[in-house]
């Protein structure tokens, strides 16, 4: 693929940051093909920006000379690439079978009440985005959820309240 064949676009690219470029360059050493680096670059940009905006995607497209349509194709395929802004912390709430058996629906309702958002929503203060996630592989300690990188197990309403209070006080 060459720069020649990158789609014309109304959206303009933003500048990638030095940190982003450095990490993307590092990935180039790990994969023999640009396309693979493209997906890594989406994750890198998301790590730094919280999500992947149109401008970010254009930037990656330009930098790696991958058509933006190809990036969009993979970005929208995977669960963990966010093409919309998310809160400071993403709650990945397991709603798969073991957690369901162990009462995760009640926990979901509790979070909904507590934060005022259901799956897909971001709290008004921008602190949390609440998303469902398939089985987190901690089924023996169900129900479970992740907040940011941290895993929380054997959830109860009280535990959940404590978790949110802790995160908010940490800021």
């Amino acid at each position: 693929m060459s720069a020649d064949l990158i789609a014309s676009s109304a959206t303009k690219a933003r500048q990638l940051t030095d940190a982003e470029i450095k990490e993307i360059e590092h990935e180039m050493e790990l994969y023999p093909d640009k396309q693979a680096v493209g997906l890594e670059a989406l994750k890198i940009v998301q790590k730094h920006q919280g999500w992947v905006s149109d401008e970010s995607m254009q930037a990656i497209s330009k930098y790696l000379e991958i058509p933006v349509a190809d990036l969009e194709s993979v970005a929208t395929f995977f669960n963990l690439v966010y093409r919309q802004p998310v809160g400071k912390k993403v709650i990945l709430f397991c709603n798969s079978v073991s957690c369901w058996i162990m009462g995760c629906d009640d926990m979901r309702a509790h979070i909904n009440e507590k934060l005022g958002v259901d799956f897909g929503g971001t709290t008004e203060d921008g602190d949390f985005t609440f998303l469902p996630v398939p089985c987190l592989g901690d089924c023996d300690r169900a129900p479970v959820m992740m907040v940011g990188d941290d895993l929380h197990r054997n959830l109860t309403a009280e535990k959940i309240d404590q978790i949110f209070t802790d995160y908010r006080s940490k800021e």
Partner: protein
Amino acid sequence: MAKVVIDGIEYEVNPDNNLLQECLSQGLDLPYFCWHPCMGSVGACRQCAVKQYRDADDKDGMLVMACMTPATEGSIISIEDPQAKDMRERVIESLMISHPHDCPVCEEGGECHLQDMTQMSGHNYRRYDKKKVTHRNQYLGPFINHEMNRCITCYRCVRFYDDYAGGTDLSVQAAHHHTYFGRHEEGVLESEFSGNLVEVCPTGVFTDKAFSEHYTRKWDLQVAPSVCTGCSVGCNTTPGERYGSLRRIVNRYNSEVNGYFICDRGRFGFDYVNSDDRIKVPLTRNGSEMEVVPAGELQPTINSFKGSGVIGIASPRASNESNFALRCLVGDENFYSGIADEEHEATQLILSLARDKAFNAPSVREIELADAVVVLGEDLTNVAPRIALALRQSVRNKAKELAEGCHIPSWQDAAVRELAQHDRSPLAILSSYATRLDDIASDLVIDAPAQLANMGAAIANKISDKAPSASGEEEAIARIAEQLANAKRPLVIAGSSAGNIGLIQAAANIARALHETRGEAIDLCLVVPEVNTIGMSMLVNSSNTLGSALDKLQSGSASKVIVLENDLYRRAAHKSVDAALDKAKAALVIDQMPTATTAKASTILPGTSFSEHEATYVNYEGRAQLSFQVHRNHAAALPAWRWLSEQQRGDIDSLINRCAEEAANFDKLDDLLPGLNEFVAGMKIPRQSHRYSGRTAMKANLNVHEPKQPVDDQSILAFSMEGVPATKDASVLGAAWAPAWNSNQSISKFQEEINGELKQGHTGELLIERNDSGSYLEVAAGSDDGQLQVAIAYQIFGSDELSAKSSTIQHRMTDAYVAIAPADAKSLGVDHGETVSLDGNGNVAIACIRSKMKEGTVAIYCGDNEIDRHALGDSVALSKAANANVRRGIQGLIVSDLFEEAQA
């Protein structure tokens, strides 16, 4: 050949193919969606399920997807098995879950593969009663409509657009049942082949936008087999007319030429035919005004263009017949070439090479077989687009070879791609500017045309030292030479568009060097710009150049001129055309649309368009093809040959016969004519389908009586639904239709085998015989005067005179531009988008700063003849000019090697 048993009957099949393809080849009905005859199998839709049995004793069998199962010797399968049928019914039911069922208002209705397959699979009662998934549609530009709710997720669109045609701005997005096919954001689909989505999509997601605005059911279109007049490839098309207007063009299968696909110029470039600007009546000059010629004076006026002092100027966009009729009228010696002098010289060279035994002019299908290619100077995507698409297939031969080594059948499309990744057969592109094939090029050399020719000569010399020597960048030369020499089927491409005869000479030398070392005829593809450049040039004496015609007029040695469908201002410097026409006593111009030349005419006669007459054209290979009349011209226009022939009536068949008899090299022309005796009970072939509806209602606002169907005494086709549709014996197939197969997929019913020749036999006639043995050519050297070297650039949407008059195409056209290297722009002090003056003589163009330009070289795109191209030399002086009137600008330009800083 392998024997397989299908539902108890033994068939001989090709074991290299899959079962679906072989079932279809046998004429059996087996539904499918994601499989495509020339894109192979991916196994996504699961529609082609059949039962396969291990052996004769196996009573249970196993469901398999026919498209994913090789047709191996001894296979036993059943299409009719109840479980297989049930599976196919289930699949259709699933596909229809979220389909809007909007067939009555869908442009695809009546020729929808989804409709056909739904019927065929037996799903008729809707059980799904939950919520449907809906999607947003995108604006995709002037050509294509997007209605995603109709999507059945067969993946054909992206497989064609991206994998087959190399597009980069359409992709599949999201997952599970939200899967979406579109661009990353709204905008014009960039691929020059986007129109094929209309035919590739098995339902109405991608539809022809212009057609949508006044769509007509397939069975209500009057159609006839036609040939695209957009370029020298001569793709076969089926134009469709209704109520006197030409509504659309679709691909018409020709196994040797275009196969299943045409380009967007060919598909969308026709609506000038319906234009109000058409010349409708014979006109004659009265001072500065043109007046309608009174009925009684027409013949005397025409007659005044007979006899001595009259010369004729031919046309590369007119048929053989019209050119031949003009030649007959004015006589050989007074019949002049209708193309620019340099192009004439180049074309005569191409013709001489076409008689040379050392070479073969490859068809599009043969181009796809090449496994090492060098392109010298031609921007194929913009001058012969279908060939560019073929080259995208040729570079995949490496992948197929690798696959064979791993025992992966070539129809396993995804598997072959996954195996080969970016491994491609070599394609070396020598060009003066970035082309749309660069992404698949193994070598890309950007230089001035003369330098490229020199490099070509060096490649030839590297292959055989008997070829004249030349020097250049050693490494690339050696690599390209080696790739060609080692290939199974090397291919050399050049042509006359690049405007440098040295490129053709170099190409011939490369091919000759290969011939010399290998002993076989080498594929040498020499393209020319227009539909009948070759045919016209075969009719003209090589010394009868346009320049000499203009001289004759200017000097007074000829006093009158007949100009056949030609705007001379595109062919020669405006000054010399003016001088010639101003001097001429009378100028008779026959054309379809007003031009700068008709503006100078003393008499203008309206000519019919490609869809309004029967005609033959000769493509770049020397392949003559017959194009039928689709509909009548309701004004006074006549085919040019009719205006020019003695008795104005006459019929086309006798003219073709005469041309075959009298014109050198045309002797096979009359083989194109289907004889009436071939037809059932002598009946004609209807242009309208036998389901053409509402004949009595058509003009009900005027009169409810059925109008008498016009009689076509010229052709074997009828302007009605009466007659016998094309059968196996009739070499005429307009729209393909077969019982249960209303969509274009019905073509399989007319093929000898899938992807094979049509049973109708239709591939045209190669006119030129190869008896000569030539020798190496001296490659013309360039001169460097220190000025900016000129290369000519083309645009698929704009460079062709007639399609540029089509309103659909005009949406995609740009103004004239000068492509320039960043450094040169800087030293001239011009920015991207600013106006520059060429040679300070009033020609202006917009500066387009491109990163892939050689410093010291510019590429000039002349727009719709906005620049007096033939007044330009091999080099040019540029200067910044006051910003001229921008009509279209260059924003719509898809070259994409725009220089970064220029953009910002």
